[in-house]
Every structure is written in C-alpha cells, then in structure tokens.
C-alpha cells in the first residue's frame, strides 16, 4: 500500500501547520506543508495528494470576516482545481479558520452538490471575545462523515472569536435531515448544550460545532483535533494519570480521539 499524502496549507497568517502535519503523521499519512502560493504558481500540484487540510490560524488577520480573504484568493486563483479535487472523491478537512474558509468557499455544506454557494456562516461569538477552552462534543453517529467513524463523544479545545454557526431555518433543516451536522457542543454527560455557555462556547445555532458535505468526505469543525495529539494535551491528564496509577482507570490510549479523526481519513483512503 502506498502512503496517503496529506497536504497542509500554510502562509498568510495560518498557524496550525506543524501540529496538523504531526497529527497526520501520527495517523499514518505523509504530511507536507504547502504554501498557498505554491499551489497558485503551480510549483506544487494538488494531484499528488489524497487529503487536503485547511488549517487554523488568522488568514489575512481575519480582518474582513474569518477565512473570507483566503477563500476569495483560493476561489479566484485555483477554484477549479479545488472543485476537481473534490469531484475525484478526495478528502478535505477544515479546522477553525479552515472551516471558516470552507464555508466561504462554499465547499461546505455542499447542498445538492453545489460546492460554490455560501449558505452557512461562522460569525462572532455571542460573548464578543476570543475564547480558548475545552468543550464536550457529541457525534451524530448516523452522519455520513467518515472522519468521525467510531467516535461517539469526545473532548477538544476551541480557540476562536468567530465560531458561532448561523444559517437560515431551511438550510438548517436540510443539514439536520441529511445528518450533515456531525458535531454538537454538549454537556459533560453528553446531553446537548442547548446553547448554555460555556458548554456551547459561542452561541452556535443548534449547538453546531462541525458539519460535513452530503458525501461525508468534506468535514469542517471549529474545535482543534490536532491540538489533542498527545494524551497530555487533555486538561485533566494529571488526574487521569493519578487514577490510573491507583488502578482506578486504564491509562489513556496512545491514539488520542483528536488523532483518531485523522486516522479515520487515512483508513478510509487506504481501504
């Protein structure tokens, strides 16, 4: 089996490249950090990759809406290539700023196979401020999303000022019925957060933290799975360790739930 090649987009204020590449490597892929301009000038081709990741950061400072300017540049310069990548059945993941970029490109939610229409948005948190905290997430296990296979509930960090998912009632209904709402902010017991701060950290409609396209091959989420690449990233890891030392709980697995998301993508392609 040849290795799966994952592209990690960099440049213009993006900043989660090293840990995203690391997470892909832990998941068994070969990750390459590629500057946006290298795709535009053609020195690197999308053809050699099976997964493309739009990573977290502040592209163009997020000055005109998070992910907006990056989406404009990519649509203008390499929009056709991106659509071809998707048509070929390859995988795309957008995390935080990358998720914001995907919805501005229209690659998400991709309703009716239209991958250029902007129909959902990620806007300013209700709290009015950037927030870094860990959240509980409930996975829609019936979702076609292939990145979350085998995951039921998980915890991940959020780090954003513009993560409030917004759309109109019709689009929301369509997304829900097509099981495209992959991740929802939840209470510690897994029940829906129902908008309660800080469990739902931004006021997102229907506690939406991540969505996929109808095929499940394009996935966008506000939380950062790549920042949970080692069990000591978890905020309670010293407690888990002490409980494990006393035989009360097992030691955490080597593959964190964060890396599992990347592993699912690699496994899907390798199958």
């Amino acid at each position, binding site marked *: 089996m040849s290795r799966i090649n994952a592209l990690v987009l960099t440049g213009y204020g993006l900043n989660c490249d090293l840990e995203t590449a690391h997470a892909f490597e832990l998941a068994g892929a070969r990750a390459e950090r590629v500057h946006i301009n290298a795709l535009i000038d053609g020195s690197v081709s999308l053809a050699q990759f099976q997964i493309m990741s739009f990573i977290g950061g502040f592209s163009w400072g997020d000055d005109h809406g998070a992910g907006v300017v990056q989406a404009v540049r990519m649509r203008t310069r390499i929009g056709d290539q991106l659509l071809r990548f998707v048509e070929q059945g390859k995988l795309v993941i957008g995390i935080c700023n990358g998720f914001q970029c995907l919805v501005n490109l229209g690659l998400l939610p991709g309703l009716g196979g239209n991958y250029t229409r902007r129909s959902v948005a990620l806007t*300013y948190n209700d709290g009015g401020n950037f927030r870094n905290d860990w959240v509980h997430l409930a996975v829609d296990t019936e979702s076609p999303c292939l990145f979350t296979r085998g995951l039921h509930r998980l915890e991940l960090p959020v*780090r954003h000022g513009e993560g409030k998912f917004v759309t109109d009632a019709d689009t929301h209904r369509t997304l829900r019925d097509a099981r495209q709402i992959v991740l929802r902010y939840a209470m510690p017991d897994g029940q829906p957060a129902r908008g309660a701060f800080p469990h739902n950290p931004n006021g997102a409609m229907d506690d939406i933290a991540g969505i996929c396209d109808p095929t499940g091959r394009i996935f966008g989420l506000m939380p950062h799975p790549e920042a949970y690449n080692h069990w000591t990233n978890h905020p309670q890891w010293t*407690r888990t360790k002490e409980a494990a030392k006393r035989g009360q709980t097992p030691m955490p697995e080597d593959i964190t739930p964060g890396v599992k998301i990347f592993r699912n993508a690699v496994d899907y392609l390798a199958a």
Partner: protein
Amino acid sequence: MASRIEITLKPDLLDAEGEALRRKAGDYFGIRLDGVRSVHIITVDAVLNRDQIERVRQEIFTNPVTQISSLNPLAVDADWIIWVGFRPGVRDNPGATAVEAMEDLLGIRMGPGEAVYTSRRYCLQGKDLIAADVQRIAAQLLANDIIQQWKIFSAAEWDPAEGVGLILPKVRLDHTPTLTVLPIDSDRALQQLSTERNLALNPNDIPVIRGYFLDPRVQADRERVGLCEPTDLELEYISQARSDHCNHNTFRGLFHFRDADAGKTETIDNLFKTCIQTPTRALQSRKPWVISVLWDNAGVGRFDEQHYYTITGETHNSPSNMEAYGGAITGIVGIYRDPLGTGLGSRLIMGSYGFCVGPRDYAGDLKPRLHPRRLLDGVIEGVRDGGNKSGIPTPFGQVLFDHGYMGKCLVYVTALGIMPTTVNGQPAEQKTILPGDAVIMCGGRVGKDGIHGVTASSETFSAHTPAGHVQIGDPYTQKKMHDFLLEARDQGLIRFITDNGGGGLSSSVGETALYSNGCEIELEKVPLKYAGLDQWEIWVSESQERMTVAVAPEHVERFLALSVRHGVESTVIGRYTDTGKLHITYDGKPCAYVDLDLLTAGFPQWVFEAEWRSPAARGLSEPVLGPPGDQNQLLLDMLARPNICSKEWICRQYDHEVQGTSVIKPLVGVGRDVNSDAAVLRPVLGSERGLAFSQALLPFYSRIDAYHMTACTIDEAVRRLIAVGGDPDHIGGVDNFCWPTIQYDSKNNPDGRFKAAQLVRSCQALRDVCLAYEIPLLSGKDSMYVDGHLPGRYDETHKVSALESLQFSATSVIADITRCVTLDPKMDGDRVYVIGETRNELGASEFYDLLGYVGCRVPQVWTERFMPRYRALAQAIAQGLVASAHGIYRGGLAVHLAMKAMAGELGMAVDLARIPAADDAGRDDVLLYAESAGRFIVTVNPLHAESFEALFQALPLACIGHTVAEPRLTVQGLSGKNVIDLSVADLKEAWRKPFGDLI
C-alpha cells in the same frame, strides 16, 4: 473617485460588538443604552469603476448569510451615532489586508497614494441619552484621541443620504526630504540643538561628540566624502546609540552607595558587570546547557541533543500608558522578533504577559490619561491580538494592581523560541557578517512611526499630520515574515539576522555593521509608507515588523525570490564593508560618515548618588494587632482581593494551545479554573521532553526592602518550576527591572538617592540568589523612569512613582513530561504535607495590606536551606510519589490551601499545630497569612508516604492533615478548635466574584 461601503449584521443576529459596548457603558458609567448596532465602513480611495467596487462589496466585504451592505449609508435605527476612524498615518491593519484582497480579486495593483481606510459607526439607542453621555462613550470607551478621530451625530443631525461623509485620513506631507547640517560652535550651541530637536543628548556626552567632529583627522576624512559639520542624521544616530534604552547607561553607571545606618560608603562600578555578567559567565562555565548569553537578542539554552531554546523579555510601558491597545500589541509583537533574530533565527513557541496597573475600580481624584480599567482592557486586548494572530501560545501571565502604577503602567512581555542546534552543519547560535554581504530590510515599510517616542505626543495635530508616534503592531505582516525567514534560514540563506526595534535601522544596521566593521547604506532604497520623510527620519523610524538580514551576495537572488513566495517585502538597502565607517547616502549624496568605534570611545559613565536607610530607620514597624475572631470571613475577603482573585477572563482570551504543545495549561483542576504554578510545553512534538516556564512579580516587598523583594521574587519563580516537575539543575533566568527615576534632584526627585540604593540592593540580591541557586541570566532588560505626573482635584499635579519592580522569569527542562504534576489534589484520603517553615514574616503581606499596614518583617530567602528541600521535592516528583504540588505564594498558607481545595474540588482537613514553624510564628493568623518563602503544599497517596518522607530527612516537612471527599476546607487552630470551616463552593464564590462576570 473615493467610494464607501457600509456593512452591518442582519438585524435578527446578535451584534456581539454592539452588545459589549452596551454592557460596558452601563457597567463603567451607569449609562443606560437600549441597544447598539455597529456598522463597518470601508472607504476606498482608488480609481475603480462601478463594477469593480460592486464586486469587492459582494465578494469580499459582505457575507451573504450574516451581513447586509450598501455603497450608500445603511438605514440603522439610532438616537445617536458615533463614528470612529484612525488618524492619518496610524497603522490600519484591516485597511492593508483589504488592499491585498481587492488587488487579488480584481487582478489590479493599487497605485501610490491609493489606499483603503476602515472605520466604524455605532448606532446607539437610548431614550434618555444626552450628548454628554455619548461624548463620554466616544472618548472613554471607543476612541483614543492619540490614534483616532471621532464624530457624533444626533438623530436630528444625521443626514441619511450623506452618512458620515467621505473621510480620507491620508498622510500628505508636502515635504521635500532635507538633510540639515548642524553647527556645533560651542557645547552650549549643541545643547540647544539637542533640546530644540528632541535629541535627548546627555549633557556629559556633548563635549565628546564635539571633540569627535572637531578632530582634524575626522574632518579630513569627512571632507573626502563631501561632509563637514555633523548632519542631523549623524547626531540622531549618536543620540539613539547613546540612549539609556540602547546603552543601559544606568546599569553600567557608577554608584556612590552610602549605608546611612552603618555610616559606610562604597563605590559600585557597573551593576550590569558585577551583578549580572560576572555571575552568569561563572555559571556558564560550569553548566554546559548554557549555550549563548549576554550578546544576542535573546539567550540560548539547550533543550535536547537537536534543539536549543531561546528566551528574552522586555517592557512596553510608556506607549501602553498612552494608547493601551497599540502599546501592548506593539510590545508583544516586538518581543517576538527577538528570538526570531537570535542566532540564525528561532521559531517562536510561547509568550507571556505581566500587567501592572492602578486599581481597576479607582475612584479617587487623580486623572490619569486612561483610567486603569480602560487601560487594562486595552493592554489585555493588545496582547491577545498580538499573540493569537501570531500563532504563538500565551500559557502564562500575571496581573497586578497597585496605586503606584497609576503614574505609568507596566506591560511586561516575554518570548521563547526554539531552533535546531545546527543549520546546514553550522552552529545555529553563532553568526557573523563578511564584507560584501548585502544589507536587507524585510517586512514592513517605514513611516514616521515611533520617531522620538512620546515626546511627539505633545505636538498639535492637523488633519493630515501622521499620528505615528504611537504604533499599532501588525501580527499578520510579522507572521508572514516569521515563516519566510525560518524557511530562508533552513535553506542556508541567512548569514546574520537581527530585529528592528527601538532605534530602527540606526540601531540594527549600526550594531550589525560592527561585525564586518563597516557598511554603506543607500537610504533612498528603503521602502516608505508615504513620501516626504527626511533622511534622518528614515534612519531612526521605529516602524514595526521589520528585520535586518545580512545575506551573502550569491544568495541574494534566492532570498528575494523566497520573500516574494511568502508575500513579504524585502529590499537590499546597502552592503556591509570593512572600512570602519558607517557611510550613508541618499540619491548618491552623503548623509553620514562616522567611525563605528566612536560609540566605544570615551563617553563618560553616568554617576548616581545612592543612600540606603534600613526599614526601621525609615520609621517602619510592626502593627500591634490582636488575633482575628472571624477567620472564615477573613479568608473569604482575602480570596476576593484584586491581587488574589480569579482572572480567568483574561487567560481564556489568550490562545494557550496553538502549536499543539500544551502540557500544563494556565488554568488547571477539575473546573479548569485555578492558576497553575507554571506552564509546561512539549515544544518538539515527537518528543516527550518538556520546557517549563514560570514568572514571579512581588513589588510590594519593595515598600520594606528591594533586596528581599528581589530574593523572594526569584525564589517564587524557582518554586513554581519545581512544583510542576522542573529540574533544579537546569534553571535559566530572565530579569526585567522596572524602576522609578533614581537620579537625585532636590525638587523633582527628592528621594532619588533612596530609589538608587534600592536598585543597588536589588541587583545585589539578584547576584546572590542566582549564584546560590545556580541560575544563569539568559537575558534581561531594564526600564527606568516609571513615574507619572497626574492632575488632581484642583488641577495641581502629583508625581506618582511605581513600586520598585522586578519581574523574574525562569525556565527549566523536564526529561519526561508524563511525570509532571499539577496543584489540584486528586483523591480523598491523601496526606497533605507542608514543606518549609513558616516565620513571622507578615511585612508588606497581602494580609497587612488588607488591614492597611506595611509592617517591617519582610519575608527572607535562605538559599542554602531552601535548595535541599527543592531537590528533595524534585526527586519525589520524578519518582512519581507526589499527587499534587503547589507553592505557597502571595496571600500565604490559607489562600493557597484554598487554591488547592478549589482546584481539586476536594475537601482538606488540616491542623495548624503541625505546621513547621519558627518560634515567633505561634499564632493562627501568622501561620495562615505569613508569606515566608521556600514553602510548598503537597498531597501524597498514603501508600507512598513512607518513601516520600524518607526523601525529606532533616528537612522541614510535616503532614498537616488529609484530603476529604466532602468539598470543605477545615483548619484547626492552635487552640485545638476549628478556626476555618468553609465549603469549596463558598471559597470559589468569593474568589470568582470580583471579575467573575467578565468574559
């Protein structure tokens, strides 16, 4: 030709920005607003046709899901409207990215003079709003007149067709760049010039400067290149290089130190050399992990076989005091350039902050330029945007309130980086320059920013004069440059790299030219933000986000091509030579021709008078206090003190997990809400080796003695590292001094001699403790003149001086991060131990401060007694015997028992009679609130108790109780009765209450 786009959120969406303003107006001023909507305005000053402007409106500036927009003013209901925009020349980051986006979408290049300006208008609704309220909101919440302008419209005044009008804050200088030759006929003439032109030349330097330019050899040399008397550029260069900021004249000064009690006088020559350099060099020779110190932009220590870490810290006080957001963001983004410019360049891995401001609820008569509350809001946001947008985690920070910071606030910023030990086979920490190398300026462009710092603020503004002396950092431009330079480094394209900070090119080129011994600069090649700068202004401008790089001629082409790939501007502005001269031309005409060794030749040392009087001689004594009866209420009140209470709202605004390296976060425990002792990172993702980082700041003790202030501060930083699992054999330090003016003046600084003595004693403590704990000072900076003159009730002014303050940062390397511990007790039934004895040391404590006393018995550090217990604890943690560990810091034992209980959400039952204590500490309140150094609280699984205790033979250790399942803190007093009995919920409520509503 200008056009304007107005954008606002759809009416059914919550306007979080407007809502935040509504809340603040109510909370801060009691002004009731019914609603606020914000409108973003993009003003495009460029030749675009209707289709083009329509296209950018739709595709860039309007989100079809959430926003509406128009080329005409939007109809938004309002009783009042406030418009806020930048003054000319102020960095407009969104305006700059708008230009990039528009050029990209339309496939055009905007011409010189074309630009995009962003501004906002706020539509206020409130039936009873009056003009004075609206004015107050504009001036005290929304805008700072140093960088911004605003307009207020009542509903009646608002013209719905005209809106705010077309406001273009364009810089128009209408000035031909002019080089001025300055006559130096006499010392007095030069002194007068220095005053007129804000050169800030030290009077003692003036004869040396004149002597140089009058030297016949020098005159002959200058004549050959077409110069005679000094030019303004040359004097500016000398002034910059000789400034206290660049040259550390205070720390290198001569101190006549008189101990008034002992009647003895001694002379101390050069505090830097005697207290910092010599001890650090001595330690470096014994500690192979110390790689590079005392010369580069940051210090370098070994992380592992393949990596070094870099660290430095500084302050950005004066600018933040004028414009809090701009000052703080410029500070944090600026410090990030130091590790980037260390060795051949290091990648940034974390930053930290320390904010010292006046009381947040200050309601007295003094009128600082910015109220402490507003100032704090601004610096928090500045460091937030600067750090977050740089993609660098901010996992540690401190905030401190004291009246002394009303005069000038302190904004400490610290940065750490990591680099490979070698680049292309060359040692990464070394660098030099060869004659012929290109001088390249990378990053931002040059404007009138930061020229002569804040002195310019007193000048009057016209509509088109640039207000650039207060800057706004641009993390976006710098992040691009950071990524570019690291790639250039790895391709072997960088020979030397340094940052452009204070002093601009004058400092960076002037200092780097020493490596090759000369340079030739063609100043007209420096890219400018706008035309019309004089040559000297280009040379000393402190425009941000710039690095100076030396590149070998054969690599210039590749370097510039890579720069284009990353969307970064880089320009060759000259070449390094070996002529011994700094030679600057503009369009071929000479501007400067100065011997580089002028600065090392014969400038007189600064001289200070210092007079020390002991606390007792100054009239300090212990208060006569009876024992408190209500210990429960006392503890709750202590927890709610501004310097103790929860400041979670600040930590949560800072991205502390980007880069995926977080091991110990700023907030830990069951509720993820109690401050950890130190931060731990895993900077090399594939490795389980860790880097621990801590800071301490205890200026209160300076009220009694800055020697002990310093010793306690260092001791606290060290204990913080040990508490998480740091290695006592690898502790690196960074000293950041912030001191009030120490030069005695009978009128303006009558206690200057005492402040100078405090500085001497502080430096001596730094030397003593660092030698004892074996802490090399990897880096350090000093910031003097922390004083302000504030108007009072009758418009009289009051000089307000800050407490003598030292922030100490400490690093350690952890072999295995999975051994780290946090402060939260993990299980009920564990033993609770206290390590270290408690003494009657309540002097300048939080407890005394609560009661309005200073006292006399300040905590002291006995390094030789403390270190063995630190080693024992480090060993216990490394062996996995410790379930939780926490130092006892400000507030004493009671406060820190509460921190542990809150973090673990577990009860603790302890007995004061068992605490290791000195004979004079035999009182409940002393045991609970003394701030004696050298102490920890630790919880241990009873199964490990024996092994744990065995490590502490002959050391002060006692089991004082145990953890209990019911979340309740009970403390049995010396009488045998419970003196404290409080639920964890009650503790948490009190501790969270002061700032708990802030998000």
